[in-house]
Structure formats: C-alpha cells, structure tokens
C-alpha cells in the first residue's frame, strides 16, 4: 500500500535548470496553472452572457465577488478598495487550490508549506510596506497599544513585536497543516476501505463524510487565509 504522504511528492514534469537553480515544471506547478485556468474560465465564462438577471453560474460568480468585497470592506475598512484585486486573487488562488486538491489523484499545492509561506510572506511584506508608506515611522506605534502605561513598554513591545512577526508563520502553517492532515486522513481511511475487504463498507461510509468535511475545510481555510490578510491590511491602514 502506498504511503499516505506519497501524494505530496513533488515530481518534475519538464526539468528546467537556470544558473544551477532547479525551477522544473512539476506536478505542483501544473496544478497551479490548472487553478489559474479554472478560476479564469469560471469567472469570465459564467459572466460571458452579461445577463442583467443572472443565471446559476453567474449568480455564483456574483456571490463570490460580493462575498470577498464585503469581507474586505468589513475587515479592512476605508481605503482598502484598491487592494480588492489582490485580495480576490488570493482568495481564488487558495480556494481553487484547496478544491482542486480534493479531486482524486490530484495534487494539493496549498498543502505545501513553502507555497503557503510564499503567499503569507507576500501578504506580510505587502502589509508592512503599506503601513510604513501610510504612517511613516508612526507605524511603529503598532507595537505599543494606545493608552497603555509607558512603564509596561518593556513587556508590551516585545509581545506585540513577536505577535506581529509570527503572523506569516501562523498564516502559512495553518493552511498547509489543515490541507496536509485532511489529505492524509482521506488516504488512511481510503487504505482501510481496501484492506478490510467486505467490512471496508464502514470506512467507505466514513470517507464520504470526511470528504464533505474536507470540502467545508477547503472553503473555510481559504476564507480564514483571506480574512486574516484583510485584518492585517486593516492594521496597516488604520493602525489598531
């Protein structure tokens, strides 16, 4: 029986080496490209009729659009509208990655810590740059809660600093760990279905339930990743 973590193996499809660096087109890259194609085809295709009264697909696209728009408006507040394309892209990239990964025999790029870390660091750096660009050195007030007694500064500033710097870690580990664990669980239960023979009907029933749960988690984690990015953006735009 295959190891439950074999599904996460990176396999080169087209080996590419540039200046000694391996940037091969792998199964991970393939699924990222598929995600881009799926997201774009879904979002533009469903809107191609430009119906004033939307059909089912168009309603779905409009709901996703307004869902993300409301998320950004409610969590990041005023002045956040120009970052909407980025937030929307982030949401679609993670959501489609999570959902594609649930297709049997596919690869889940959001389960790889380096991918989620790439996205989280992008958000972290972006937010930090926006914060300093908007408030200058005043952005450092982030690390000292307004109204706290100055004598607490030696304690509060390191705590706030650590909590700020740990954002990209928590953001990336949360998503990757959730995806990895979910897929390992599916694989393990799937293994039981084969090895238990006729009794495998029981884990088979279980795996259906877990698959539905994983669908929910795929959407939920995409939402959490995006909403936390919005909250970080709020801190950068309006401080605490």
């Amino acid at each position, binding site marked *: 029986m295959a190891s439950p973590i074999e599904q996460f193996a990176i396999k080169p499809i087209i080996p590419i080496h540039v200046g000694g660096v391996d940037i091969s087109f792998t199964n991970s890259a393939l699924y990222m*490209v598929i995600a881009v194609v799926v997201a774009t085809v879904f979002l533009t295709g469903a809107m191609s009729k430009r119906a004033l009264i939307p059909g089912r697909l168009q309603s779905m696209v*409009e709901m996703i659009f307004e869902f993300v728009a409301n998320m950004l408006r409610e969590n990041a507040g005023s002045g956040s509208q120009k970052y909407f394309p980025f937030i929307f892209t982030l949401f679609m990239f993670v959501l489609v990655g999570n959902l594609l990964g649930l297709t049997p025999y596919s690869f889940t790029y959001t389960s790889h810590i380096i991918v989620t870390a790439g*996205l989280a660091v992008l958000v972290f750096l972006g937010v930090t740059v926006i914060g300093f660009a908007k408030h200058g050195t005043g952005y450092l007030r982030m690390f000292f809660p307004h109204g706290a007694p100055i004598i607490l500064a030696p304690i509060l500033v390191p705590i706030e600093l650590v909590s700020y710097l740990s954002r990209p870690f928590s953001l990336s580990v949360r998503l990757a760990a959730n995806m990895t664990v979910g897929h390992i669980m599916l694989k393990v239960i799937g293994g039981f279905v084969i090895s238990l023979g006729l009794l495998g009907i029981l884990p088979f029933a279980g795996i259906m339930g877990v698959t539905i749960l994983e669908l929910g988690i795929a959407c939920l984690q995409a939402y959490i990743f995006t909403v936390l990015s919005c909250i970080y953006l709020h801190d950068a735009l309006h401080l605490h």
Partner: protein
Amino acid sequence: MPHFDATTFASQLFWLAVTFVTLYVLMSKVALPRISDILEERQRRISDDLDMAERLKAETEAAIATYEKALATARASAQAEIARALEANAAEAAARHAEMDAVLSAKITESEERIHAARRDALAEVNGIAADVAAAIVERIADVKADADTVAPVVAAVAKERGL
C-alpha cells in the same frame, strides 16, 4: 515528508510567483472589471426604475391635484351662476310687483274719483228734486205758486241743518 525537501522550494516559489501574478493580472484586468460592470449596470437599472416610479407617482399626484382644483373651480363658478340667476329672478319679480302695484293704485284712485263725482251729482240732483217736491207740496197745501228759486235755498238750508 516531501514538504520539507528544500530542493523543490525554488521551483515551487518560481511557479507560485508566475501563476499568482498571471492570476492577478487576469483577475484585475479581465474578470473583476467585467463582474463589477454588470453589478453596477444592474444597480443603475434598479435605481433608474425606482426614479422613474418616483417621477410617475409625482406626476400622478400633480394630475390629481389639477383635477381637484378644476373640480373646485367648476363648483364655485356653478354656485356663482346659481346665485346670480336667483338674484336676477328676485329683481325681476320685485320690478313686476312694483309695476302692478302702480297700475292697481292708479285704477283705485280713478275709481274713487268716479264714485265721488257720481255721489256729488246725485246729491246735487237730490236737492233739485227736494226743491221741486217742496214747491209742489207748498202749491197743493197753501195754494201758493212757489217760485223754484225761493224754495231751493230753503231746502238747501234745511238739508244742511239736518246734515244731509
């Protein structure tokens, strides 16, 4: 675990950057403007329709107000017309009444005069007859031929004395 195989990091990050930037461009230049266009178009259509409904309602209310004003004007002019007609009738009636009064009182005066004249004539003749009777009586009783001119003043004096 393949997650921590650092030899794959460069490739994954590279393709992450490529695909993410591609998706960002596709979203911001193609998909999102198209979606927001349609949403705005719908919003505009809805608010246009609401505006139109509002305008039509205002027009309806204006029409109702005009109608009621016209109705009130018509009613007022009808009342005025009726009042004028009543007044004219009353004036005409009063004029005819006065005219008739004048005619009747003229007739009454004329008739009274005629009665007076007749009475005067009658009284004058009564005196003459009384004088004749008196002369005849004197002639038969006293066998005196009484002159009419002598008898008449006496009769008149007696009549006067008796209040005739």
